[in-house]
């Protein structure tokens, strides 16, 4: 007994070690696989549950603007207006946020004194952490009221552009307001991405520009912006993805109607996400299933945008 004990200890622990390793490695890869499973589940369940209503739908899902789904028979609903509103709101947000975000990123990296820059980095991250429902509350109670005179001025001077045609909504709860709040929400995302790529511009390139007698702006245009462009575009598309899927701010601010309307200063339009949040509590019959179908469309749109963003960012990595 004692002899076998003394001769084997070198083997027994190795055996146990292997078991430990196997268990641990399998648990870890199992967790990884579980993530794939969850994502597959998201897609699968959404598709399965939306089938009910899509099969029963009496009109074309993609071209109809109406939403009469909360019935037990003959539902008629479509995402045309919702998809339009979703893209419109996100586009407004993107157009407003991107230039400002680039400006802030440049400010943080190249203009602000170093101490201030560190603090600003903090603040940008904090801005990203504020819950969207709080943005919504602030937007609907405070901002919307402040915007009214500005909208009146817009209509007065730029009313001849169809986008700004009157009459201005009395409440200010318009597509432009929703887009504005979305812009504030995606600002930190685009800023953070742009800031990171601007930080990565090699000092050698910046010095090369300065040594040629470039001013700070010329240095930025010559060395920083071309280098950072793919990163900025990637960040903008991530922001776009976020704006497309954002629910609460739109649900709380926009006074919705299911039309396709280009008039930003009037109430109207609606986004998929906000529509789901508003309709779900009252959905009956085919209602829930129809909302899931709408969610599927949103999922597809954001997926496409995000993959595009990843692709652009990845291509930049190959370059450098």
């Amino acid at each position, binding site marked *: 007994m004692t002899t076998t004990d003394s001769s084997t200890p070198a083997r027994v622990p190795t055996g146990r070690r292997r078991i*430990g*390793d196997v268990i*641990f*490695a399998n*648990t870890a890869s199992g*967790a*990884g696989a*579980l*993530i*794939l499973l*969850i994502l597959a*589940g*998201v897609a699968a369940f*959404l598709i399965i549950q939306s089938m009910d209503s899509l099969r029963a739908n009496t009109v074309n899902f993609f071209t109809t603007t109406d939403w009469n789904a909360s019935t037990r028979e003959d539902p008629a609903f479509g995402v045309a207006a919702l998809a339009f509103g979703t893209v419109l709101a996100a586009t407004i947000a993107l157009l407003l946020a991107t*230039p*400002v975000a680039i*400006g*802030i990123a*440049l*400010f943080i990296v190249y*203009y602000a004194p170093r101490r201030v820059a560190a603090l*600003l980095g903090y*603040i940008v*991250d*904090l*801005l990203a*952490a*504020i*819950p*969207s*429902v*709080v943005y*919504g*509350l*602030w937007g*609907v*109670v*405070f901002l919307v009221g402040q915007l009214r005179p*500005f909208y009146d001025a817009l209509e007065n001077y730029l009313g001849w552009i169809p986008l700004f045609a009157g009459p201005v909504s009395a409440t200010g709860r318009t597509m432009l307001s929703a887009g504005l709040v979305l812009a*504030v929400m995606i*600002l930190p995302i685009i*800023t953070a991405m742009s800031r990171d790529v601007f930080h990565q511009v090699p000092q050698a390139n910046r010095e090369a520009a300065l040594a040629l007698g470039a001013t700070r*702006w*010329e240095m930025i245009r010559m060395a920083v912006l071309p280098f950072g462009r793919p990163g900025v575009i990637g960040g903008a598309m991530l922001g776009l993805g976020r704006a497309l*899927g*954002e*629910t*609460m701010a739109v*649900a709380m601010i926009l006074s919705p109607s299911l039309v396709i309307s280009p008039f930003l200063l009037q109430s109207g339009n609606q986004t998929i*996400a906000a529509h*789901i*949040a508003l309709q*779900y509590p009252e959905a009956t019959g085919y209602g*829930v299933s129809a909302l*899931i179908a709408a*969610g599927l469309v949103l999922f597809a749109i*954001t997926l496409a945008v*995000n*993959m595009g963003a*990843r692709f652009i960012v990845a291509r930049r990595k190959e370059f450098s």
Partner: protein
Amino acid sequence: MTTTTTTPSTGSSGDGPRLSSSSLLTGSLPRSFAPLLLAGTAVVVGGALFALGLFHLVSFAVLTAGVYLIAITVASRAVEGGRKAKDRLVTGVVYCCFGLAMAPLISLLWTVLVNGLKRFDGYFLTVSMNGVIPSMDAGGVYHAIVGTLVITGVAALISIPIGLLAAIYLVEYGKGRLKQAITFFVDVMTGIPSIVAGLFVVALWIMIFGPGNTSGLAGAISLSVLMIPVVVRSSEEMLRLVPNELREASYALGVPKWLTIVKVVLPTAIAGITTGIMLALARVIGETAPLILTAGIASTRINANPFEGQMMSLPVFIYQQVRAMGSSGDAGIYAEERAWAAALTLILIVMLLFFAARLISRLFAPKLGR
């Protein structure tokens, strides 16, 4: 040697005014010119607006910025030339961008603080809305705080092990197709709109329990879908920062791989991982949309059991009160006050998490990083 009279032989290529040393003396505006001009513009614009009776903080700021940008560009173009003028213009624009970003943040924090404090007190934090009818000047967020803590807690219990283990897999074990697939789909998952995560659980729940079943657990699972990819991403980044020499040193001592990971790699990266997890929590704790779908929006009583019944949470509470703001009379006012106070509570919790995360990373990371 000192007299450079030989220039004509080579000076043909570009003799212009810039060959004279006086070209270095391009005029320049004094250093204090820009701030003085800005102050002057502000005074003039402010005075004019007051005189016209049109003073409003926003129009004042916008007009001042606009006038200043034009003035500095014109002045600089006249004295310093076009290139310098453009540089000054861009500098001004970049500063304006910064101001533009600060304005909503300050405005938001200020309004939440001022409006929230009206009702933010011990009573508000310690009572629920059970039995409170709209016209009553009563009620609080206790039930919503409990719900938020339970739901986020359960979400964290689900997400942290899965996310951390997946990150370990990616960094320590992963290779080939599965690793690529996980990396790619974690990226995809980061982009899932929160409402879709809610719908996923709705669809799942319908298949298991039939329609109309809401609970805290359902809410927690929907939040996990949002939280897992964030945890994976940040943990992965932190694990990659652990130098390979540490792992090799451990292997050289005959320590098996899994023990190396548990005893060497994880402790080294733990500060960064914790920070990442807390930031992920700060992000999902404010999620509203998925909870509306999965945990219900009508609950008014204290419910700490995630497996049964509707569960209120702070963000949903805010939303619920905003929807009640349209009520007539005092009911609307009370609802708005409750919404602001709840928003203040929520922001305080998020900030607490945020700063705790930063503090952890600052206190522990430098010593362990390298």
